[in-house]
């Protein structure tokens, strides 16, 4: 089973990379770009078909390593 785990900066936390990309896109003439947010996705292949277990394990992975709760949240999508 594959899962996409996306790590997202919490609302209000500065995203300098996103702001820089927005600026670059504006400079390239894409004037309609109002905001760019960066997020990181990990595609994780799990040796299980149990969706409940997969979800639980991924929560644990996020808490232990993938996300820092001070500045990040995460979204899990089981494919």
């Amino acid at each position, binding site marked *: 089973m594959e899962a996409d785990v996306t790590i997202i900066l*919490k609302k*209000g*936390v*500065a995203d*300098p*990379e996103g*702001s*820089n990309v927005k600026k670059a896109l504006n400079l390239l003439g894409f004037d309609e770009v109002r905001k760019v947010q960066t997020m990181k996705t990990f595609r994780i292949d799990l040796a299980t078909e149990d969706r409940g277990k997969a979800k639980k394990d991924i929560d644990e992975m996020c*808490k*232990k*390593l*993938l996300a*820092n*709760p*001070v*500045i990040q949240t995460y979204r899990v999508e089981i494919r």
Partner: protein
Amino acid sequence: MDTDDIRVAVLLIEGTNNEGEVYLAFKRLGAEPEFVHLKQLMHEKDIFDYQCLMIPGGFSAGDYIRAGAIFAARMKSTLCKKLIEFAKNGYPVGGICNGFQVLVELGLLPAFDSVMSNYPQAALAINDSSRFECRPTLLKHESKGNCIFTKKIPYQEVVLMPSAHAEGKFLFPLEKKDEYLQYLIDNDQVVFRYVGPQGDYAGYPWNPNGSIHNIASICSPEGNVFGMMPHPERVFYGFTHPDWTRVHKENGDGKAVFESVLDYIRRKF
């Protein structure tokens, strides 16, 4: 204990690359530093064979996920109990640059309510400039005596130490920012703050990353766990200061950090 009996573990994993100067700083002062790979502490070596644990800078595990996150997670899964015991017993634990990021990810800093929090209570996020910032930085020493790594630096003295990092912006959770910052100040946990040439708490480029309260370095409430983004080991001698040909200092500003911790160990153990 005597200086030459003091054993310092300079802890490494893949991607650590600032270990040489940290090792030399202790060696030059007469202590017995040793490079120790994290895996060695799982089998053949014990953390209690040492009186001081130093986590040097670099790009541990390629800075993947977040800087220091993988190193911290591996330390937590293999050393957690011993590490808590080590810090609880008053042994010094220091982290420089990537090492500071590791200590924050581990929950050993700022450690408001226990020696090691279950989850991080702070973050060292991407610099506001979104770039790797590499240059000498001026730091005002703000510890009123709590931090054992800086006892030899006078209160409010401005020192120069180089910064070199892409993720050094010290942050608290937004909803708890003011409360946590107040804890940090009340507990005498703020050790260094970035300043401008007039000693003022200036913004960029003096504050290279956009840290709240211009924070460059903090310690634990007990003062024996210490992390800083700039590199004291790179200014051990006066001649490594950028203005040395004009100023001719004998000692570099970073030397006092290593002298302070050795002095503490000599007295306490």
